[in-house]
């Protein structure tokens, strides 16, 4: 059943965000987010600002949804401190919190390799339609590292 017509509403992705047939639906109604996500949402880690940071990034647009600011302090290539603030949905807050936790203490060469998947995995997964939120934490981290590198190269 293929078609070139533009007026065909063709719900080919009908089962996109649902498990395959045969998989059991959850017995008990679950929270939209899992417990780890809820924990990072209600008690986000590394919230705050860093005065005179070595790197800083502002990502997102509050008018479109979420916004995040991220500060890092780097010494000898290691992220010795990292802080964030976020205006956004629970997914954005939790992934930002988890991203800072993962990056804390890392060498920036390793931190650069952190991906959205790492954050999502560390959180034990987030709902499919919330995955775009996970982009923010890692995106801000990478941007802050780039900012740090620019500042460093300027200092040289």
């Amino acid at each position, binding site marked *: *059943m*293929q*078609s070139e*017509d533009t*007026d*065909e*509403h*063709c*719900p*080919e*992705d*009908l*089962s*996109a965000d*649902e*498990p*395959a*047939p*045969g*998989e*059991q*639906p*959850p017995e*008990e*109604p*679950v*929270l*939209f987010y899992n417990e780890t996500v809820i924990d990072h949402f209600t008690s986000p880690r590394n919230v705050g600002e860093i005065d005179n940071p070595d790197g800083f990034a502002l990502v997102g647009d509050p008018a479109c949804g979420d916004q995040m600011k991220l500060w890092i302090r780097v010494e000898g290539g290691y992220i010795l401190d990292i802080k964030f603030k976020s205006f956004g949905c629970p997914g954005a807050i939790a992934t930002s919190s988890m991203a800072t936790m993962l990056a804390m203490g890392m060498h920036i060469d390793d931190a650069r390799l952190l991906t959205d998947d790492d954050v999502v995995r560390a959180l034990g997964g987030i709902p499919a339609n919330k995955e775009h939120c996970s982009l923010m934490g890692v995106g801000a981290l990478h941007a802050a590292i780039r900012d740090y590198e620019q500042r460093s190269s300027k200092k040289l």
Partner: protein
Amino acid sequence: MSRQTIYFDHNATTALCPEARQAMLPFFEGEFGNPSSYHHLGRKARASLQASRYGLADIFNCGPGEVVFTSGGTEANNMALRGAAAALRRRGRHIIVSAIEHHSVLKTAEALAASGYDVTFAPVDDQGVVDPQRVAAATRPDTILISVMSANNETGALQPVHELGKLSRRQGIVFHTDAVQAFGKIDLGTVFEWADLVTLASHKIYGPAGAGALLVRNGTPLASVITGGHHERGLRGGTENIAAIAGFAAASLQAVAGLDEKAARIGSLRDRFEARLLEDISGICINSRDARRVHNTSNICFEGVESESVLLHLDLLGICASAGSACTTGEPGPSHVLRAMGLSNMQAQGALRFSLGRSTTAEEVDTVAAALAGIVEKLRSLSSL
């Protein structure tokens, strides 16, 4: 009910089975959430809806997203015909439906005809069965949709839907089957091997009224006909009736459990019923007798009597049956199904439908057969014919 009721009208609607009732009751107490709501009551409702969807998907071996819940069979039939026609209107405007479809298909086809589609009504033979050759001959390059029911509600005659479905698929035509009367009577576990759109109704399978489904095979072009929020993946707006849907899912499980056994038991009661009638009453004719039929349905013409008079006599004895389909109570005139089979107006006027069910006993069968013999004799004695 004041007297002992004998219910031989299971094709019209069925009693709620205990499993379906049990599944519904929580929603009438605390669990009243809207599945679209964010909070825990909403999630609970969403989880129930999902469980129902998976239940259906499991029965039909399809993806949960291929189950689109509706308010019933009529709406699902409208969705199938109007939705596919709208989605495919640029590709073509020709639609084929059989002449013996339920009114929810026939009238919808007529409405489409009035709004610019070209509709062919495929005939049936004297046993009430569609001839696949005739359908094949009627297809054209601009044929977009063929709709033939799996089992007829009046006669119980099974239709050659596998063949028609495969024929349609070969030609890239969407195939819809109204399986309202087939579900729970024949195995539909591989229905997507030949059909693209499948209509189901809960209240015919011992589930509650207010729920039905259109199974939509992935990739089938379908426009929404009840537009609104993003419910049912955008194909059917409206706050979901989760109580009825949960009851429907529970009833569906029962409908397919031990199907062969139930079919054999009810089928032998139906055969006993027909044998008794043939023995005791002259001038009767069992419609679709030589066709493959679902196990519970007997459609019988009684020569020289008018069906409403028989029905009223039966009713006065507490026996529930119907003339043609239940939906025709509001519609005078003989059954379009029997007329399509070539019966005369007068023959069709003497036709009654007896549809047996899970609760039917041999004793009931004998009681109804004996009652009919008396009633027909009485009416014939005062007949002017």
